[in-house]
């Protein structure tokens, strides 16, 4: 491999993944490129079922990029591409006929015939919540019903029920039940973010990806969101990118520490925060850099 400015010298890693049979989603040996610029290097991320997996690391380390590969949202931008595997319940959702040749170029042994999987279905199964709340310019009800109408052919009454349930699960129902027809934009920032969670939940995803969901929220709203996530993990698996170390320690079961596009350390949250194995993780957690 040619020398790259982002290459970490003396790469010291420690990876202690959960047992393979419990994995809901798994990224394997991912490289990622913005044009010719490589930003992820052979990154793997196991996501255990019904657990919260947190990604931490200094700005620009590739946490968000990794998250954006998992539901292939990066593919909206033609100059960006990922090489590697993302397995949802064991089935590769990243490799299609375009990326297959890149895998082979890299020298990977490709054992299965990749399918061109339906990206719309993938995104319904892997929901995403962004850093800034992104309510659609329509009513609260229509925001939550948007994905349902897209993927399922449901009657009006059924959609009513799904919307109510999703809002309950996102802990927003009591605040909005009397104004479902109001614009989603009329809610406060914290409520908007929980609306986005509800919108994602309405299509019953297996995995929920959150990209710094609390960074624009005040502490009270953040606490509500965290409670919501703790409740939600009973039904689905969660991956959360956060800059807030306390948040990762509070809510996550596993934590991955990334640095300059590499996964440096991945293990259970208790272990990472109590006894980090690698020097870089130790330095980051004690505030010596980052």
């Amino acid at each position, binding site marked *: 491999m040619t020398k790259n400015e982002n290459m970490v010298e003396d790469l010291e890693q420690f990876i202690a993944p959960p047992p393979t049979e419990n994995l809901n989603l798994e990224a394997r040996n991912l490289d990622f490129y913005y044009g010719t610029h490589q930003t992820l290097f052979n990154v793997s991320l196991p996501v255990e079922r019904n657990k919260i997996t947190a990604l931490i690391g200094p700005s620009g380390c590739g946490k968000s990029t990794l998250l954006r590969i998992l539901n292939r949202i990066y593919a*909206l931008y033609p100059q960006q591409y990922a090489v590697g595997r993302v397995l949802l319940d064991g089935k590769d959702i990243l490799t299609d006929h375009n990326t297959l040749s890149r895998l082979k170029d890299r020298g990977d042994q490709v054992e299965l015939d990749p399918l061109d999987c339906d990206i719309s279905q*993938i995104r319904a199964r892997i929901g*995403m919540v*962004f850093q800034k709340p992104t309510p*659609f310019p329509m009513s609260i009800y229509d925001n939550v019903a*948007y994905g349902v109408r*897209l993927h399922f052919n449901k009657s009006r009454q059924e959609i009513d029920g799904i919307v109510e349930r999703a809002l309950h699960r996102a802990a927003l129902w009591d605040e909005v039940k009397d104004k479902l027809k109001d614009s989603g934009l009329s809610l406060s920032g914290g409520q908007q973010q929980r609306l986005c969670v509800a919108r*994602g939940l309405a*299509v019953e995803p297996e995995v929920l990806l959150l990209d710094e969901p609390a960074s624009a929220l005040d502490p009270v709203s953040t606490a509500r969101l965290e409670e919501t996530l703790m409740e939600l993990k009973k039904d689905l698996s969660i991956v959360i990118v956060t800059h807030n170390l306390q948040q990762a320690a509070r809510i996550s079961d596993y934590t991955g520490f990334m640095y300059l596009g590499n996964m440096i350390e991945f293990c259970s949250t208790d272990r990472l925060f109590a006894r980090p194995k690698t020097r870089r993780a130790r330095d980051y957690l004690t505030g010596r850099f980052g």
Partner: protein
Amino acid sequence: MNSNLKRRLINKIFVALCTLSTLLAIGMLALILGSLIINGAGGLHLSVFTQDQPSPGMSGGLRNSIIGSIAMCLAAMIIAVVLGILAGTWLSEYSRNSKYGRAIHFLNDVLLSVPSILVGLFVYEIMVRPFHGFSGFAGAVSLALLAMPIVTRTTEDMLQLQPDTLREAGMGLGASQGLVIRSIIWKAAAPGLLTGGLLGFARISGETAPLLFTALGNQFLTFNMSEPMGSLPTTIFQFAMSAYDDWRNLAWVGALLIAMAVLTINILGRVMTRGGKR
């Protein structure tokens, strides 16, 4: 101390110049509106809307011109809004950073500042001469060609203002790009798109030159757009140059009507965009 004095003096001069320029611009506008009202308001009777263009010395109104203007502007706006919004959407959503996108964007900017008389001549060549006749349709097309670049440009700008995260959120739920644009991005940009339409309308409502080559003008009332059609600007052009006092008075009334229509539309546009911001 000395430099402080100098700085304050320069500041005073600059503020004075800015104020003066603003007053000058507003003063001009006030003069124009003032003379329109003084000369036009007196002739503003109901008959202006109920009677057609008179012969010199007879009583009459502007009904045929008003109807012609409304018909041609409406048809022009339908064409301009449909094509302009689609073109602006293509520029903003489908061809960002592409070679063709940049070329079309540039050409649209050129079209934005093409003299209207050239548009009139162009439509004369492609619609009037081949069909051997002036028509309201030709007039509408020439007006549409003037409004379309404005709608296109405004649409492109307004869609680009929408954050990428909104598009990602829509597609993150599994919607296709086209559906996200139609059901989310257009909705979010709706006040801006409306402003584009209103700006285009304000631009064409007073255009005279292209209509002289295409719709020609018609002193009789017609709803048939395949015939020559009257319009307020062409009638003003004809009447204002005439030797008859009653014609010139009607020209003032027509000018006042156009100015009022444009003013109303601009104010409406402002109110609507403000309503959408929130």
